[in-house]
């Protein structure tokens, strides 16, 4: 019966995703995603922020299908730059540079690219099925949640994002608090009181998510990247001999399977996502390998594992967003922004109220992965050419798109002033080595947590013990506590740092 239901759902999704229009949006997302993946210094978060205003004119299905395509498309594109230029096109392909670039220097760029794409495709297919299978039970579970449970789940989500943030934990705490504080700006929905508005009427509705994300991720990155002119040492603009040998396939099979499994699990964790997946997969491959000392000299395992893992994680990180309405990383926060633009409130009710949208998006991921493998393998030469656009011009183009994108949100020039301010804030955060992702999560979750906290307190007649009396809520809080303890113990922390440094 469960299988029947699944098939029926997938059939519904197919009917939505396979329309000409939605296929086109999917292709569009995949193409844009690959492009921003290939280009260093332009990430999927900033791109999605840029395109959010544009999606306003699209139907909700098309908009979300395209936005999703950008994210997993960027995972494919990122590896191209990593292998050919020794620069991570995306942060999730940092580890691919280690062995991928070495392979390219040995004239084996073709097999490296092909294995990366094939691994990503396999992982993408598995993760798509996983999402389809995991979503309904999780959604059912979520419907039993009381406000207190939601509150505690969000606490857990924020704790995850803190624990998994790169760099100092204390700073990540500060970033979450700062993000929540920024989220409170505007009118208090329960009482109508104004908070932190400084009598500026543009702030009465709160700070916009798009200007915030665009300033912190888009403008700030431009400032930071213009400071350190990058060098691009393209191995060769022509990639010959694309097909991997039988030996390559044999050696990659295990890493792809392991990477897919590991990535799928890590993608589920709030705060996880693609970056964590690829790092852990590399470490795992090194541990499993009989010749760990050879890693870094062009081992195909070091390409296959992480590339499968980052794509799997990129996709499974949709699960908490789709079923619980809780973003697990900055990209998912962006997806939630996209849903809200179309008046869809993310949460377990989406699957029931908009089944076409929900299942259409999931099936579109499979189409998207299929398109991506075609886009990335035969057409690789085209993408490599994109790398010839120098950053000094790219920066100006991105800046312009940010400005006009934010302007078009409400046709208001004042919002453009906000991105200037957030750009400076973002640059300050980069200089202080504070990762902005927890800030963005705090910004989204802060106001939601306040709503649930108030509901829970009202239901319990002012008794704060409600948060530990409900078993679900207690479980989440205990988990959060354990996580924090683990991190505070210096032993574990050292391990974490070395994992990220590798």
């Amino acid at each position: 019966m469960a299988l029947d239901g699944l098939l029926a759902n997938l059939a519904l999704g197919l009917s939505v995703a396979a329309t000409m229009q939605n296929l086109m949006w999917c292709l569009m997302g995949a193409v844009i995603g690959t492009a921003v993946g290939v280009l260093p210094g332009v990430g999927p978060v900033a791109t999605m922020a840029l395109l959010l205003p544009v999606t306003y004119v699209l139907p909700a299905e098309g908009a979300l299908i395209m936005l999703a395509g950008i994210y997993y498309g960027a995972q494919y594109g990122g590896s191209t730059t990593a292998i050919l230029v020794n620069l991570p096109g995306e942060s999730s392909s940092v580890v691919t540079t280690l062995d991928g670039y070495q392979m390219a220097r040995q004239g084996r760029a073709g097999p490296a690219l092909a294995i990366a794409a094939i691994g990503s495709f396999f992982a993408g297919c598995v993760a798509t099925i996983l999402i389809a299978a995991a979503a309904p039970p999780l959604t059912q579970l979520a419907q039993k949640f009381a406000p207190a449970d939601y509150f505690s789940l969000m606490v857990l989500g924020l704790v995850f994002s803190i624990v998994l943030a790169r760099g100092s934990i204390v700073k990540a705490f500060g970033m979450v608090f700062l993000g929540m504080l920024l989220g409170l700006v505007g009118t208090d929905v329960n009482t109508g009181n104004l908070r932190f508005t400084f009598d500026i009427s543009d702030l009465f509705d709160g700070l916009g998510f798009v200007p915030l994300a665009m300033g912190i991720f888009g403008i700030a990155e431009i400032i930071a990247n213009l400071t350190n002119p990058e060098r691009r040492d393209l191995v060769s603009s022509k990639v010959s001999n694309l097909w991997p040998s039988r030996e390559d396939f044999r050696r990659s099979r295990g890493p792809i399977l392991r990477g897919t499994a590991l990535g799928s699990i890590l993608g589920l964790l709030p705060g996880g996502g693609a970056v964590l997946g690829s790092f852990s997969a590399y470490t795992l491959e090194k541990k499993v390998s009989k010749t760990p000392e050879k890693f870094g000299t062009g081992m195909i395992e070091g390409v296959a594992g992480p590339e499968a893992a980052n794509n799997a994680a990129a996709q499974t990180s949709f699960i908490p967003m789709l079923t619980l309405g809780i973003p697990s990383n900055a990209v998912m926060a962006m997806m939630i922004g996209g849903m809200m633009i179309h008046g869809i409130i993310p949460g377990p009710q989406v699957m029931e109220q908009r089944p076409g949208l929900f299942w259409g998006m999931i099936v579109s991921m499979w189409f998207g992965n299929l398109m991506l493998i075609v886009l990335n393998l035969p057409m690789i030469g085209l993408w490599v050419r994109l790398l010839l656009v120098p950053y000094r011009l790219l920066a100006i183009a991105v800046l312009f798109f940010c400005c006009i994108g934010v302007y078009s949100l409400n046709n208001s020039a004042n919002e453009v002033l906000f991105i200037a301010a957030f750009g400076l804030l973002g640059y300050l955060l980069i200089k202080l080595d504070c990762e902005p992702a927890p800030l963005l999560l705090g910004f989204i979750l802060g106001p939601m947590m306040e709503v649930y906290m108030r509901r829970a307190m009202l239901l319990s007649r002012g008794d704060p013990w409600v948060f530990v009396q409900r078993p679900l809520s207690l479980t989440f809080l205990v988990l959060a506590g354990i996580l924090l303890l683990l991190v505070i113990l210096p032993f574990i922390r050292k391990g974490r740092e070395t994992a990220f440094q590798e």
Partner: protein
Amino acid sequence: MSRQKRGNLSLREDLRVNTPGIRGAVESAIFHGRRTWCWRMQIRNGQDFATGLFFIAIGLGAYWIAFDYPMGTAMRPDTGVLPKALAWLLVGTGLILAVKSLLADGPRLTGWAWRPAIMITIATVAFALLVDRLGLVLTMLVSMTLAAIGTPETRWREYALFAVFMVVLGVVVFIYGLGMPIPTWPKGLSWR
């Protein structure tokens, strides 16, 4: 500078002189309190120290603004609860960072990229202020040129070609394609 003299510096001057990174000055002592006894502490992690101060400043500022927000009851928490709680949490986080920066070594603040930071900000602000008045074409030219000044890498001949391309692209995509209500050219000749 003698010890006594340094002890009399205001906190702000003290930071200016003594915080690594802010002036690029060497790590040095902050003196608190009286002339007869002062304790010496080194800022061993300029980055964390600055982050700590930043969090503390934001936290205190937020508390000050939120001071009058009503707190409500436990059953109906009001507007002020979360802002004040977050303000204190930020201050606490900042204090931990500041104390930590005195105990363990870490990176200093590195130099600021003033040129791109200022020019990119001005370019963005220029776009905001001009677009409704000057229309898209002139605004783009002004804003993009300001941004181009932001990096020494700009090659002006290449930039000129690129700018023309971008303006055409901008007008075609955003005004004709997406139909955004932005004027292409300034309306009339007066600034209104």
